[in-house]
């Protein structure tokens, strides 16, 4: 029919066919561009991961020395908590190298072991008092210079004396020197000695802080989003709130730290460096994100669902809680996880409320002094000891693993709520 109105020679098909190649070319070009962008970003990501993994993985192993420890009751005393465990360790070293007599040589010998060896012995005795009076072989952490030597023999050699190298090779030949899984890294808090520094303190701090953040910002954020989107009418006040929430989401995070310092610590008198205060400050930061994502998720629920529920006489609250919220929840969870991921990686506001302190003890409560993973990374990256370089990367690996775990949890939750019908 159409052909009649046009010259016979040019059919629609011919015109379309003439333009087809151009269209496909444009499509191909766009595809190539897209693939290029994906490959580029993946490449950078791989580079980053590769770098961090190669630097951080050695920190998961730690040089240890096996020594025959004689748990002498005289040194441990009546109160095992206050025993002289350093002497215990030295005595064992002496026993392993009886020929070392001179004071200077002895000092060098003792330096093979970490200061943490005494802590480790103390921990063992406290955990099992029956050890006292026995004699057994124990693996004790070596000094970070020894550790460094085992991991990088070429450069590590220079920091040890020839005598120390000889002792080490002797220990090695006896099978008493080995790289073993670094249990200290996962069971201890921060330490001045890199070989004894662990991530558990910061990990617990992060978990506590995030728990506080989640417990506050998720319910409050969702409730605000629901109220603003479903119940508050469109008026000047609602517009005012909206503008302010959007602004709040864009406020630099350090401001929330200052606010936390002024309000929670100075005004309310909450303890410094505590996960409770950190969580409060971070929820201020996370809540706007959750509100905005929540409102977007609510807006995306088709109005026909609301009409259907209202049309058979459901009240506003029933409509929202029975029909709208379940459909919006996956989107809200996505927003929440984005906010929580940001909170997990945040340092600036926590510096303001004192979570940057050097804290050895693992926090046991919300008000105990603590630090968090990113702050720990910052602290270690700032430390002069070479061994902290690997620790820093290892801490980043832990942080990333935590993040991935958290995201995976969110994906599982979202899948659970997301019914495609």
């Amino acid at each position, binding site marked *: 029919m159409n052909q009649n109105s046009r010259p016979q020679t040019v059919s629609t098909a011919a015109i379309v066919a003439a333009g087809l190649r151009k269209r496909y070319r444009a499509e191909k070009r766009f595809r190539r561009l897209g693939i290029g962008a994906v490959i580029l970003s993946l490449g950078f990501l791989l580079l980053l991961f590769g770098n961090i993994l190669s630097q951080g993985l050695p920190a998961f192993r730690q040089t240890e020395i096996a020594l025959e420890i004689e748990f002498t009751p005289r040194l441990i005393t009546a109160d095992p908590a206050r025993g002289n465990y350093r002497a215990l360790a030295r005595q064992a070293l002496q026993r392993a190298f009886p020929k070392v007599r001179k004071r200077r040589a002895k000092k060098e010998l003792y330096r093979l072991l970490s200061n943490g060896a005494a802590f480790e012995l103390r921990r063992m005795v406290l955990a099992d008092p029956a050890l006292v009076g026995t004699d057994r072989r124990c693996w004790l952490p070596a000094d970070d210079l020894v550790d460094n030597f085992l991991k990088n023999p070429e450069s590590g050699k220079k920091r040890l004396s020839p005598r120390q190298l000889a002792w080490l090779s002797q220990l090695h030949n006896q099978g008493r020197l080995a790289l073993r899984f670094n249990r200290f890294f996962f069971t201890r808090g921060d330490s001045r000695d890199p070989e004894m520094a662990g991530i558990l303190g910061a990990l617990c701090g992060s978990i506590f802080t995030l728990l506080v953040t989640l417990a506050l910002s998720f319910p409050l954020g969702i409730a605000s989003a629901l109220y603003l989107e479903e119940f508050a009418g469109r008026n000047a006040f609602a517009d005012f709130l909206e503008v302010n929430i959007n602004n709040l989401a864009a406020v630099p995070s350090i401001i929330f730290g200052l606010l936390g310092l002024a309000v929670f610590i100075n005004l309310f008198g909450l303890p410094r460096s505590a996960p409770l205060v950190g969580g409060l400050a971070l929820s201020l930061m996370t809540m706007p994100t959750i509100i905005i994502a929540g409102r977007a998720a609510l807006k995306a629920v088709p109005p026909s669902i609301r009409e259907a529920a*209202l049309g058979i006489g459901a009240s506003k609250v029933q409509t929202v809680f029975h029909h709208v919220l379940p*459909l919006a929840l996956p989107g809200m969870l996505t927003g929440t996880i984005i906010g929580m991921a940001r909170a997990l990686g945040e340092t600036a506001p926590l510096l303001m409320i004192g979570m940057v302190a050097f804290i050895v003890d693992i926090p046991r409560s919300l008000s105990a002094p603590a630090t968090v993973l990113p702050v720990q990374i910052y602290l270690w990256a700032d430390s002069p000891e070479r061994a902290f370089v690997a620790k820093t990367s290892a801490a980043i690996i832990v942080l990333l693993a935590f993040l991935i775990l958290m995201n995976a949890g969110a994906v599982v939750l979202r899948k659970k709520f997301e019914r495609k*019908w």
Partner: protein
Amino acid sequence: MFLSFISRQPVKNTTAKKPSPGTDPARPATAGEPLLEKSRLSCRHLDVFYGAKQALHDISIDFSGNQVTSLIGPSGCGKSTFLRCLNRMNETIDICRVSGEIKLDGEDINRPEVDVVLLRARVGMVFQKPNPFPKSIRENVAYGPRIHGLARHRDEIDMIVETSLTRAGLWDEVKDRLDEPGTGLSGGQQQRLCIARTIAVSPEVILMDEPCSALDPIATARIEDLIGELKENFTIIIVTHSMQQASRVSQRTAFFHLGHLVEVGSTEAVFTTPRHHLTEEYITGRFG
């Protein structure tokens, strides 16, 4: 049957009473008999605005109980808007303003003290586009009775689900998959599910906005039978684009045009002896 209406149409009869267009810029009053002696639902001077745009102009009409009234008119003339006034669904649209009086059993439904939940339980609605809940078929039908507390026990609810689906002509197709999602049904099945959902709460007035537009002739016939059954106990107002359907199911017909109620009368009168030239042109298919 419908065609016979048109062919029998006595043209000279209608021309005499027809108000000529353009004589009255403010529009003449509605032709026919919009007002009734005894009515269930009555509207007076209803105006509806969407923002600055007026969608309905001064609508006055009565609906009597136990009767089916069909609303016809070209697309965009305000049929859905009018229907949505009757259970205050227009309130959910921010920019929509309604003025005028709508009385259900003598009580003005637009007064603020009237409970809108109760009103919508009494005045049920089937929407133009099927909108089942993204839940199971059973849950779709059971939801209304459950929130209103019409049935407490599981077997009571199951009874309501079965009777409602049967009356909507859907039971045989879905009885083996009541726990599957309602949104997984075909468009026509979804519309029947929505009808079942509406009748499950036994409203007194049922508003149906083109309930059969997505249905095949068999399902349409089933719904039309259902409407015939329901009219014994309920007041039914149905929007339809099918003249045949209007003439088959309804006792009264109202014709809307550009936001005005042009003509109301018994279905037979409107189809055989339309008083307004617009009505005549519309039902004979000369425009619209």
